[in-house]
């Protein structure tokens, strides 16, 4: 019987660059599992990335994000775009397990070859995304998907990593969920690129719309007058209403980013952040491998303080590098 996640990285890379779904899925699996083969894989595909527009979709539970994403996917498909969706849900901090149920609401696209839906658990990462989300987006980018949607729950101020990951972040609100959620934390309101009030046929829509208008107005007043207006749109995703306007706004935002050089800048910033994050991870794992235990013990017995301990570990690392 074939092994669980078999495959040779260059072969998988070649096949996914060709658009093969199973290969793309396997690649994401390796990245998610931090399989050693992912290094070779990434280097084989990296040159082919940098084109896709990453669209973040976030908002409180009950806002209908998945239904909205489902609707947008239909609209994009109608315009001939190939779309990938990464749906991220929290993993249990105790068991590491997760129930990933977002694709349920996108079931009608599950047999469309131009749509790829992938569910990921946060796997211990804070901020609402998994460590592998960015890499998964790169895989889809390399496979030639025009749009990569990243869908995540963003209730607290902590779950806004999607804002950094995406070129275009859509904040989804819904009437009547209560002021404390509508006031949606300052971070989100400042960072969102497009705002959508979903379930707009509900009671309370007008009040919610007004509230958001006000907040966006305040935000705009802090910016130069010629800065492009932040779209505030309405949708009734269950009926497919609002899709065209939202997709148009996303396309417009893409153009705006391109014209301002922002698209490339964001890609660059993201890549840099990823490199730094990987370096951080790498440093830590090297140190743990380096009998850091003795240093920790010294802290425990209060022979040295934490800062001194860190300095010691860093020095050791530097010494090793020099010696090498």
């Amino acid at each position, binding site marked *: 019987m074939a092994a669980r996640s078999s495959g040779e990285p260059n072969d998988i890379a070649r096949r996914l660059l060709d658009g093969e779904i199973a290969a793309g899925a396997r690649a994401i699996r390796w990245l998610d599992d931090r399989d050693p083969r992912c290094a070779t894989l990434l280097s084989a595909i990296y040159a082919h990335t940098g084109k896709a527009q990453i669209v973040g979709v976030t908002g409180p539970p009950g806002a209908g994000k998945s239904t909205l994403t489902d609707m947008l996917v239909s609209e994009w498909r109608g315009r001939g775009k190939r779309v990938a969706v990464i749906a991220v849900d929290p993993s249990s901090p105790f068991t590491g397990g997760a129930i990933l149920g*977002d694709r349920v609401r996108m079931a009608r696209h599950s047999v469309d070859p131009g749509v790829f839906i992938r569910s990921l658990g946060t796997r211990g990462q804070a901020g609402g995304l998994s460590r592998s989300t960015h890499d998964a987006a790169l895989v889809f980018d390399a496979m030639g998907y025009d749009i990569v949607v990243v869908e995540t729950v963003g209730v607290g101020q902590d779950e806004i990593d999607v804002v950094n990951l995406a070129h275009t972040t859509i904040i989804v609100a819904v009437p009547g969920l209560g002021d404390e959620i509508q006031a949606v934390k300052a971070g989100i309101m400042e960072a969102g690129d497009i705002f959508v009030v979903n379930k707009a046929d509900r009671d309370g829509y007008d009040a919610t719309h007004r509230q958001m208008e006000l907040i966006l107005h305040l935000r705009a007043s802090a910016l130069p007058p010629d800065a492009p207006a932040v779209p505030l749109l309405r949708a009734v995703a269950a009926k497919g209403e609002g899709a065209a306007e939202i997709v148009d706004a996303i396309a417009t935002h893409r153009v705006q980013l391109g014209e301002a050089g922002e698209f490339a800048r964001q890609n660059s910033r993201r890549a840099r952040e990823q490199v730094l994050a990987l370096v951080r991870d790498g440093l830590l794992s090297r140190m743990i491998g380096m009998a850091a235990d003795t240093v920790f013990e010294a802290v425990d017995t209060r022979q040295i303080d934490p800062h001194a301990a860190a300095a010691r570990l860093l020095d050791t690392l530097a010494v090793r590098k020099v010696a090498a």
Partner: protein
Amino acid sequence: MNRPSGPIVSEGEDISREAQRWERETRGPALEGRTERRERFETQALKWPIKPLYTPADLDAAGFDYAADVGYPGEYPYTRSTRPNGHRTDFWTMTQVTGFGKGEDWSKRARYMLDQGLSGLILEYDLATTNGYDSDDPIVEGEVGRAGMALDSLEDLENAFDLPFDKLKYLMSVCNAPQPVNLAMIIAALERKGIDPADFVLHIVNGILIEYTCVGRYIYPPEHGLRIATDCIEYIIRNHPNWAPISIISAQLQPAKANPVQEIAFSLAIACAHIDAVLERGLDIDTVAPYINHFVVNVDMDFFEGVCKLRAFRKCWARLMKERYGATRPEALRIRMMTSPTTIALTLQQPLNNIARLGIMATACALGGAGEAMTTPLYDEAHALPAENAIRVGAAIQHIVAHETGVAETIDPLAGSYYVETLTKQMEDAAFTELDKIFAMGGAVKAIDTGYFQRALGREQYERNKDLEEGRRKWVGVNHLAKADEKREIEIFRLDDAMEEEQVQKVRALRARRDQAAVDSALEKVRQAARDGANMVPPCLEAVKTYATHGEICNAMRDVFGVHSADSQLMGI
């Protein structure tokens, strides 16, 4: 000891001290060197701790007041009974599950039952129909006519209604998501047969909110589901006031493992969602509540949870109608319940044991007040023994409880029991706390939208299953006194390919010979009414008469309302 006249629990404080003395001096020493058989004594579903002893001091602590909490039969708050004479004039109506509608020809079976002297029938439909599809839709392959009748068009119902209607007094129809289409078909079929709708009671279950909560047969998004349910209720109140437009089957929450407090709170919240929606149409509470007060409530094996749940249900409904809506008519304040032993307590293994279980649960129903009617399920789901015997046993159980035990000779005999009154009051309080929470989040539809009901039930399902697997719950025949080599299976009803094919051909032939222009025009009117917010029953009535099919009319509404996609929240995450 002084006995001042006054409330029953005036000696509470003294008793409390005495109870502590008893604990110290009598019970404590008796426990020396021994352990109790359970680490923690708790009720089956609610997991509330059960003390060794309940006394008037507990009633005191619960703030119990006889007049306010218990009262008198047939009087607010109806805790003791909604009937002034309990069951001393008439027993509850005794009904029977007959294992019927499983792909057999419905009308053949219906005729047989009417001939046997039954006067009530239930119309159950296949999964194609209850999900709003025609028999030839590829998505329902394998389901046509399997779980019940295939109802594609008025023609099917006209054929099914070839019945002696003079014997039929009561017809119940279970078709929740497409309710206005179904209602229209029944009305049209009765018209075609020349039956006077005033001559019998049609009771539509109209239970869409429970479908969203845990059963799963829905079509449209919840706000539209509620709207068309309200259309049916309003239509019946205005046009067929002797009919019943809803049945809130709280019992359906049980397979989803709702505990008694959730059963009461969720189903009352659902009732309120319907009441609120109908009130918005210009009717008043004293008119509306008597139409919405139909509940089906089961008891499980925990005897006292069952008894207390029924008592608490009566009281909670009455309080809710009075306090939230200001209802004044007794018909509005009195709940109507059909009660039943629950099937989820029955085991596949050692089926004869289930007869004992049914007897116990039927007794709990009777002691809790039985309601308008009691149903006894079959003791053996697998039907290894002839169904006739199972039916006979079910009927006998009720007669034994009624005639041999004496529990129905006086009204609400368990009232005053320190444990029963404490537990009843605790359930009532907890139910209102939960209800307040649901109202605060915007009511039942909001609770469904945000997945609140589903998550709560999903947790219960997981926890209860763990209790069973880890031995905290003992279930005779399953994990206690189980027979090692016993192998039994639930009988499933097989597909009948020939029957499905026949039905498919029938509906296609119908489409070929009808006036398509008339159908198209009628369907457009359905869409328009959906858009306009008009009552959906009249345009559905017109459409069914053109022989537009069940699926076509449901689709016309799908075009306007959209669809509610399969819900990850049903998994209770």
